[in-house]
């Protein structure tokens, strides 16, 4: 389906699908799916369908203490920034094949996906709570460890197909190397989304609520929303890489949501079946076990075209 008005297409993608109008209810829905899946794994019934919405509205109605000075401004700013960039990342996802408008770029998407994580680190330190600082330090270490693998996987996918454009990547045929890259991306997701076994930064009970310890009411609601949008953006990126380009827009949208649903279920099941790892084990997992494969994939991806060119 193609439109002749690139600006309208771009706006529709940012605001309607897969942008804000779709992404915010979808974020609540997938937060519910995660909680429900964990509950079912534990033999519970779990929260009602509207629970994330109730939580959000309730948090918006809580009173927030007065925080004078720069720290207060910063503490209001970080959750908004995280939410905005996660929403921007969702808006870039190439779900519907479109000709006009702003074509999604993989590098921009990665940058936007990384912003919420950095906001969390900064937020923890600007709240000046000792538990938040520990959480932020852990988030920083974890971010350094999984991002090497994450970026290598993305680079291998992009280099193998010679493009950084998301739309083009989604349209190109699959290769075994691409599946290897997608697998590496999925391995990185629990750390990116702070799920067990890599739930170190917000380790519940252990360091209170991690970087979020001091955040109240509407700020906390924004964090929850940005976390939900991060879910959509990160799983949506993988869904976009898996899904072949489908011309009919509603089938494309359905397949996209279906694959996100499957990945969310998979991650929730893994999260409820595992215990939290210590920071050294987490870093070792990514740098020793996973990095090897991601590095191999990147080397093959870069070497293949070079070797092909050397052949007469």
């Amino acid at each position, binding site marked *: 389906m193609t439109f002749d008005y690139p600006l309208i297409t771009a706006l529709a993608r940012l605001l309607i699908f897969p942008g804000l109008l779709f992404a915010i209810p979808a974020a609540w829905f997938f937060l519910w799916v995660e*909680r429900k899946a964990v*509950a079912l794994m*534990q*033999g*519970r*019934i*779990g*929260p*009602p369908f*509207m*629970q994330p*919405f*109730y*939580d959000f*509205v*309730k948090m918006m*109605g*809580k*009173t*927030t*203490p007065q925080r004078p000075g720069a720290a207060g401004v910063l503490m209001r700013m970080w959750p908004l920034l995280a939410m905005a960039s996660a929403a921007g990342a969702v808006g870039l996802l190439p779900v519907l094949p479109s000709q006009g408008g702003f074509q999604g770029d993989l590098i921009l998407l990665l940058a936007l996906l990384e912003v919420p994580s950095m906001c969390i680190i900064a937020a923890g330190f600007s709240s000046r709570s000792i538990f938040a600082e520990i959480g932020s330090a852990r988030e920083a270490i974890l971010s350094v460890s999984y991002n090497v693998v994450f970026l290598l996987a993305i680079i291998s996918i992009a280099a193998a197909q010679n493009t950084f454009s998301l739309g083009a990547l989604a349209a190109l045929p699959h290769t075994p190397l691409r599946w290897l890259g997608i697998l590496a991306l999925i391995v990185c997701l629990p750390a990116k989304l702070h799920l067990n076994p890599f739930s170190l930064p917000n380790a*519940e*009970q252990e360091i*209170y*609520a991690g970087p*979020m*310890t*001091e*955040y*109240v*009411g509407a700020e*906390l609601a924004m964090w929850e929303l940005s976390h939900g949008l991060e879910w959509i953006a990160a799983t949506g990126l993988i869904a976009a890489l898996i899904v072949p380009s489908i011309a009919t827009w509603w089938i494309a949208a359905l397949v996209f949501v279906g694959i996100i649903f499957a990945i969310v279920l998979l991650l929730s099941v893994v999260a409820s079946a595992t215990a939290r790892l210590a920071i050294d084990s987490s870093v070792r997992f990514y740098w020793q076990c996973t990095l090897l494969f991601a590095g191999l994939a990147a080397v093959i991806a870069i070497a293949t075209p070079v070797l092909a060119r050397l052949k007469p």
Partner: protein
Amino acid sequence: MCTCRSKSPWLFHMNSGSCNGCDIELIAALSPRYDAEQLGVLLKTSPRHADILCVTGPVTAKAVGAVKTVYDQIPGPKAVIAIGSCPATTNVFIDSRTLDGPLEKHIPVDVFVPGCPPRPDAIIQGVAKAAEILAERAAKGQPAAKLPVIVGDACGEPCSRAASEGQQ
């Protein structure tokens, strides 16, 4: 907003010198057998995130400051549940020189769940009641001045499970 408040009660658990009996029962209320998350209940780890403060224990002299600080840190609208007989009356520790209880001396209590320890279903009943009070109070825009509510099987109003197990 009222519906959302009553359907999403987040708890913060505070032990003010309890023997751990009530604490175990509170955790049991959140465990798979009783599954309080059906009511939207979550045990939060920071008082900043909580709506309802659950206090166990008879409030020892050393815990008074902590109880007041934690109560002040919870953003409004908020409610307090006294879990067990200790925070309500100081129970068997009455007249002890190390205590500064009961809890009502220091912070306003909305719901008492008596029992030593109370059953998890009584605690869930108390949480549900506190969530209602919370939503009602927020709607009226002022602290409730009425008498605190007492729930649970220790007050002559048996919960369904307690009643059915009593018959066996």
